[in-house]
């Protein structure tokens, strides 16, 4: 069993949160001030007008345990990195500083953008609304087809980051009249503490917390987090363990465990499966995956089959044929999944939501543009059937 909170001083979870809340109060007192720019330096003012290169806000973090001597073990994700002093974890953002576990991904998002919630993608959460997305540098996987490799596979010192503590994130979201905060585009697991504290504040302000993740996380931290989350989209990269090992540098089992755990916690769940030609587009495997989803997570879980475009290390691999996406969609429907989407083929019929009872279009989409909506209170206006999701 993992220890819940294992800072080197033996800080308990409650103490940690109190410290975090205290910090936030202090920030409030400073007005726009707060945070540490560089370890041991006086806190600067927020600099949300622009970003600075290599900006980090090192801060003692949760989910570290002693691993003998001055070594620490990070228990946030399945890698369980053992870190000697000065060493960084695989994710590039968690480190052992003098025997204390620190995160370098706190309050320094590299990506801050406001855009439609469908872009995350969430098709069953507040359709047509806009969300504020944040993400820091770092990732605990190393996918050869990473779309945000210049952020996720970079050290925080290598990229420009905004000085934006949790409170600033909430203020921005409220000021822009947004409905949700989305921890997306990068890998939110690696900025766990930042996400956690932002989510606490968002919850208080009535904002939804949405997370898009690869799901590569240990059960204990996920359990702490899931109470704060309203919806999660998990990148389910393949049902083939070899694919996870060879193309992503990870394992399949922890992802399956995350999916089950989120389902059990009652969080609204959506799944994205990027279909890469020849690598994970085998229909048999897709059928097995869909069957597993239906049995373990339920037929109502929306799944998005996304098109691959040549990028990063696979720049010379052709894009996914649309017919492959069609076949995958048909397979998933045959298995019995109710909401099966095709993503990144703008104008495809599979972008729209169809009522599983009457078969009529409930939400007609073109990309993230909502063209028609036949949904009221989460029910199909044609037949009155209830559709799963966070509609309000």
């Amino acid at each position: 069993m993992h220890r819940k909170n294992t800072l080197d001083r033996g800080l308990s979870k409650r103490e940690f949160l109190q410290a975090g809340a205290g910090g936030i109060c202090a920030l409030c007192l400073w007005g726009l001030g707060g945070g540490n720019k560089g370890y041991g330096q006086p806190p600067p003012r927020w600099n949300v007008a622009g970003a600075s290169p290599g900006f980090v806000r090192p801060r003692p973090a949760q989910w570290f345990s002693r691993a003998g001597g001055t070594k620490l073990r990070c228990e946030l994700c399945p890698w369980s990195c053992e870190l000697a002093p000065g060493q960084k974890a695989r994710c590039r953002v968690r480190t052992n500083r003098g025997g204390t576990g620190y995160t370098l991904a706190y309050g320094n998002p590299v990506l801050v953008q406001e855009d439609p919630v469908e872009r995350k993608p969430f098709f069953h959460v507040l359709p047509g609304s806009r969300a504020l997305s944040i993400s820091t540098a770092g990732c605990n996987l190393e996918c050869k087809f990473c779309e945000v490799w210049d952020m996720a596979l970079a050290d925080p010192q290598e990229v420009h980051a905004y000085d934006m503590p949790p409170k600033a994130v909430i203020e921005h979201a409220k000021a822009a009249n947004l409905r949700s905060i989305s921890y997306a585009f990068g890998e939110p697991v690696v900025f766990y503490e930042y996400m956690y504290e932002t989510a606490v504040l968002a919850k208080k302000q009535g904002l939804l917390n949405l997370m898009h993740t690869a799901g590569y996380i240990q059960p204990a931290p996920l359990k702490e987090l899931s109470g704060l989350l309203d919806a999660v989209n998990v990148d389910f990269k393949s049902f083939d363990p070899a694919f996870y090992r060879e193309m992503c540098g990870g394992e399949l089992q922890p992802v399956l465990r995350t999916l089950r755990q989120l389902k059990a916690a009652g969080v609204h769940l959506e799944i994205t499966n990027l279909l890469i030609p020849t690598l994970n587009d085998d229909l048999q495997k897709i059928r097995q995956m869909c069957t597993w989803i239906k049995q373990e997570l339920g037929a109502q879980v929306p799944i998005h089959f996304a098109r691959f475009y040549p990028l990063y290390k696979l720049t010379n691999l052709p894009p996914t044929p649309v017919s492959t996406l069609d076949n995958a969609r048909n397979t998933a429907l045959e298995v019995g999944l109710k909401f099966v989407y095709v993503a990144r083929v703008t104008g495809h019929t599979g972008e729209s939501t169809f009522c599983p009872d009457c078969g009529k279009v409930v939400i007609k989409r073109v990309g993230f543009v909502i063209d028609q909506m036949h949904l009221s209170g989460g029910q199909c206006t044609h037949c009155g059937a209830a559709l799963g999701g966070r509609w309000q």
Partner: protein
Amino acid sequence: MRRAPAHCLAVLTLGFVSQVGQVLLLRELLMVFHGNELSIGIILAAWMGWVGIGSALGAILVEAGKKTPAAAGLPTVLPSYPPTFLPSFLVSAGLGPALLVTIFLIRRLRGFFALGPGAYLSLGDITVSSFVLMAPVCLLLGLQFVLLSRLWRQTDGVADTSGAGKTYIGEAAGNVLGGVLFTFVMVRHLNSFQSALVAGLLMPGAVLWLTRVKQDKKAGGGRAVLGSYLPPLLTSCLPTFIVVLLAAGGIWAVLGHLDVWAYRIQWRHFAPQHRLVETHRSKYGNIAIVQRDDQYSFFQSGHLIFSTAGPETNVPCLEEQDAAVLAHFALVQHEQPRRVLLLGGGLRGTLGAIVRHPVEQIDYIELDEVLTRVARPYVAESTRAALTDPRVRLLHGDGRLFVKQAGQKYDLVIVDVPDPATAVLNRYYTQEFFRQVRRRLHPDGVLVIGAVSTPGLRGTAVVNRNATLYHTLRSVFPSVLPVGGRFLFYAAGDASGQISADAQVLGQRYLQRDIQTEGFSHHHFALLLEPSQLRRVNWILRHHGRNPDAHRAGPQAGPLFPEPVAQQQRAEERLPPVRSRFFINSDFKPIGYYYTLMFWGHLTRAGHKEVFSSLLRIEPWWILPVVGLLLGTSVTLRMADGTRARRRGAYYAVLVAVATTGLSTMTLQIALLFSFQSTYGFVYEMVGLIVAIFMAGLALGTAFTHRYVADKANPNTLAMVQLSMAVLASLIAVVLPGVAQVESAALVLVLFSLLTFGAGWLNGVDFPLAAECCRALTRRAERAAGTVYAVELFGGCLGAAVASAVVAPVLGFGACCWLAAIANGTAFVVLLIVRRSHA
């Protein structure tokens, strides 16, 4: 009298085989590597390096053979056999198999690396595999050069290096012949293995012919020649040759199957589970068509150039979404486009989308005729229909040349060519090209062009490249609008307000045209112009490139919520000026392709991205320490006493001159060739003509030395040649920008021909002089010839790498010429210093 033609034939064949082998291996390797300027440079460097080593080894071998055959590792079964012929024949006989095996190994190459499908090899992988694979063929060619020089010298019965000089001339001529025959005959009719077999048979055939002639002479009562020593098998070479030809006929058929089989192996590693439909050889590179479901993908020289819906696809627009978005976005940037010019991209779906708009005329320019021909059966029905649309005029040729020469004006020009990965492709992204386009546009006309990007625009290389494209466009057009995510579109035009970032305006224009197409709608514009992304991209590109260190520091991330594009446009005038050295891409400073190299370095992430970034610091004065070192060494050598020391000093000076000749020849050739392609246009035959003129200059220069200055082979003459080269290089540096302004194509051709001939001629003059100087100092003809050939190739290898990968893109082609001038000038001074000490 028949001996000289026989020798000519042998060395001509060596040049032919050398050229064919080089082109074959280059084309095969480019199918595996990323075809950028750097990988081409590495392959050529490996080629020249190994040939140089081969010739140095040849010199050692021949000299060892003079003492005792056994000591040279030669067969001892024929103790009375002279050492030169048999090795020459063995080397010739080894070339064919070496070429065949090398080609096969290249096809298997990806299998040796743990790469995912579609992944690029890293710089390290490319370097190692180029040097390993090139070694056997190049070593044999280098050896053969020295062996043939020796044979010729033996026949002439002289002790000087005239044999090497003649071989040098013959080889140069053979190179031209090889290039011409390969381009116009072999590439059309023979696969790589068959071409290799032809080359592999010709070389031993020519050597056998040489001995046959010698034997005839002996039979006729001539003086003893090498043929008299031939073993019985070789004395009856005609029957042997016939047997070999018959065997080759059988092998010929087998090679046809081998080619297909080897391609399948290659593509199994490259794109597994794709069906290799067809492969074709065009003079511009090998083309492969692969199929997966109803999608067809086209690769040229290892690049995925496009994927397209097949004839069986129901909704091609979905499959060809990128092309459709580009086309429709471009068409609605003009309120009423009547005449459209499309450069490239038509086959991937762009043309099919354009014809849906009510335009009157579409001129579609595609470079490679073979590509259009072989692609037709596999492209979408909508594209095939568009190709037969009466409004469409399909023309084959260089798009840039067309823009320069076109007599009419257009409302819209769409440039849909691959990213500027090479100097040739970079010509579509330069200031000069944009100026030419603007001249071809009506006053309210619009240019639309694009380049690969990343959604976050965070990496230094990708931002540098896109900011360079933006600023270069902006330096020509008053209004430029970048739009997109992983691919950025740029619409450029005058300030009339046609170009719009308003999705509603564009959607309205689209709807007014009543376009019937499945899979695309006016909603797409809202997606493309999503405000947060649009504002951020515009902010980054408009602001980047204005700080002194911007090219190395990467982009600013900008404010969280940048102002609307219209406000950004107005505010742009108040921003600091753009750092033009690093952010304006021009024909003569093609920084665009350097950033593409940098981007590739980031993608392969093998640790060399920092190297690219560091090389951006390059300054002209970096050459000074090298110059200082060379001069310092010569002064030190001058101060030493004794005959031996003086000789060492002279030897050093001659080798410096040889190396600088190799280096400056290569850098001048690169500067001239690339400038010619930018100024005249990329016409394969014309580029081939320029290369041929260089080679002709080389051959005639060597011949000139033989005839007129052979008895003046000393450091003084060599110094004068170096000085002449320095003067010519300086002259080229000065006149090159002027030549670029010349409008007349014929005059451009004449001027470039003259300059190129001059460079080749001086290089040709230099070689025999240097070889003879070297021989005078070492008293060994083959050692001198082999060493000079090797050192010149090493100089060339260095010149190719430095000029094409760094100096040309970062400092410009003028700097390449100045580099050559400084190198030759330094050699001149080194020779002067040594000459005085010698005196």
